[in-house]
């Protein structure tokens, strides 16, 4: 069975890529160490030389895209179950749309946060770390962090609601009284997306980019 797994093209590709990546890192690291060039590995240089705009926009992009991935995944899981279950039990169609709406809410959180964060991005005129100033760096990193927070929370929230919704649809198809109980589970799942939004708002509350 290992042989069958190895014969799988995906596995070979991923193994190869992972091996190439880690061996590059390892060899570069070893060379830097033995030639006493470790001082050139400078994380502070990286963090101060990369533009705060990159971080801010990465945050905005990740906020919306990861949320949408979560929502899409959830809808895909729930939707296929509703459609499949609805063949034999058409009555479940209307009631189970609420699961789809819970998944969609996650995407709405994402886009709202993305718009809120992108409104904070302003231009500044510095070019060196001293002239850019600490406030702009803080703004860039906060926006990145907020985007990451809301994105990943919504991603997992969406998946969670989707799987629970799928189970709810199929259970409803079997036994109509189960649906309301399962809806409570879905509500708990949906709350975690909201937590992400709240934390992201807190992160960007002190952001002030610009001169």
């Amino acid at each position: 069975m290992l042989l069958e797994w190895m014969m799988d093209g995906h596995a070979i590709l991923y193994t190869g890529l992972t091996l190439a990546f880690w061996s590059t890192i390892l060899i570069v690291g070893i060379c830097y160490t033995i030639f006493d060039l470790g001082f050139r590995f400078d994380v502070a240089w990286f963090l101060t030389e990369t533009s705060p705009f990159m971080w801010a926009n990465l945050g905005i992009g990740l906020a919306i895209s990861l949320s949408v991935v979560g929502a899409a995944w959830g809808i895909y899981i729930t939707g296929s179950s509703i459609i499949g279950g609805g063949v034999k039990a058409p009555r479940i169609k209307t009631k189970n749309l609420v699961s789809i709406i819970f998944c969609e809410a996650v995407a709405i959180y994402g886009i709202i946060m993305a718009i809120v964060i992108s409104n904070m991005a302003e231009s500044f005129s510095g070019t060196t770390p001293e002239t850019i100033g600490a406030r702009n760096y803080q703004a860039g990193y906060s926006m990145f962090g907020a985007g990451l927070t809301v994105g990943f929370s919504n991603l997992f929230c969406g998946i969670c609601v989707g799987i629970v919704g799928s189970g709810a649809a199929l259970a409803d198809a079997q036994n109509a009284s189960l649906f309301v109980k399962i809806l409570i589970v879905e509500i708990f799942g949906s709350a975690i997306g909201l937590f992400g939004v709240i934390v992201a708002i807190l992160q960007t509350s002190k952001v002030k980019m610009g001169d």
Partner: protein
Amino acid sequence: MGNTAHTVTGGDDQRWPCSWSDQEHYYPRREIVRILLSLPSSHDPEQRQYVTASPYWSSTAQVPLLMWSSKSLPPLASPLAGHITSMEELAAYLTPAFGSGPHTVLLFLQDKLSKDDFTLFGGVFGNKQESAFRNLEAALQSSSSSMTFPALEWTGESAIPSLLQEKLGASPLLVDADTLSHLSLNTSVSNLLLINLPYCSGSLKSCKEVLSDNDEVMGKVLSFLKAKDVSYTAIYTGLQPSQVISRSSLLNQQVGRTLLQAPGAVVRPPIIYNMSGAPCIMLWAQSLLISLPSSSEWIDLAAESPSLSRSMCNSTNSMLVLNFVNYTLSFAMSQRFYPVSARNWFTLDSVQLQVHQTGQTGSFIGSRGIYAPAEYSFRCQSVSSFRDALLIPSNQNTTQWRLNFIDFQIQGFGLSNSTNFSYASDCAGFFTAGIWMGLITSLLMLLIFVYGLHMIMQLNTMDRFDDPKGPSISVPQSE
């Protein structure tokens, strides 16, 4: 007649370069016309100049001269390829070489010698074992110093013996390998030992054998002298060139290509400040350009050589003060231990420029961008105060001053008795900030793409309810 339009590089040579001869040597397939030039050996400079300034009759007679010594010969920049050394240049070189004290000079004078002999018989095409000059090569390599003049001008008769006689103040003593053993050398006076070697014109032996025999003779003589522990200088040259190419006027073409190597730029040595005998601070820059507030032109300070008074260096601080005629440029460096990285780093704290005339001073802070571990040197292609500035003006009035150091390398600590820079920590890293930013975003997007692609690629159609033996699905065409 006039001069042709082709350029002469190497302006110190008053003659036209004899480019055709070199070309002939590289293309032996061409018919080589051997004409024994019998130019009047005139010492009249004007007449000589008239003869050789003609582009249609260029003198191509040259004889190589190899010189090696068990003592150290004065250094001379190796002659540029294609440059024909004149007798005056040789005389000017031999004067300091044989100036002080008694010398024993061995002159191996072969009847004829040209560069072609080395090319043909020297095993230069990868067949070293067939070389006819093995002892010569060994002697050149094992000598403490050697000097080669690949093309010494030859104007009818060899002036080498008379030149050496004049420089050494001793008359030549004709010896050969056998009589040398019976000779007792008086090393307190200069001796000129002349050994005549034959060439292969008309002899029964092949050229290679003749040259190999000559080489044997040279080897014997040199080993004899080495055994006697006599310090000698040996010269191997020819009375005439063995192959002479003459571009006589029947060709009547203009020379199109000169093969004279252009002299390369001389590289300045670094500025070294010594403290108690050992070098302490070193600086090198291709140019130190400064621009003052009043003018908009650049002044290159690296062209002048400064005095280094008022420089100081101790274990934590180094200050290099370059005192030029009108300016003073000083570099202040400091080093200390930084606990997070647990090593010593040095920074170029400030660069100060002072104009003597007006007394104005401009000072720039360099500690932000110019740093390196204290054992290493710092090197940057461009250290400037205005474009990707590593030097920041310290106050408002200094902003009108501008500095631009090109190919700048500095070291203020860690030099231990050697005048070489330590490893140069370059200001440019392997990846720039922009490359990192591009790499991060594109790798992130690539990761997302690969993840999505993986998910889609592992979607399969359901085959749980497939029944290969059952009836296949039929879609009726009509209602």
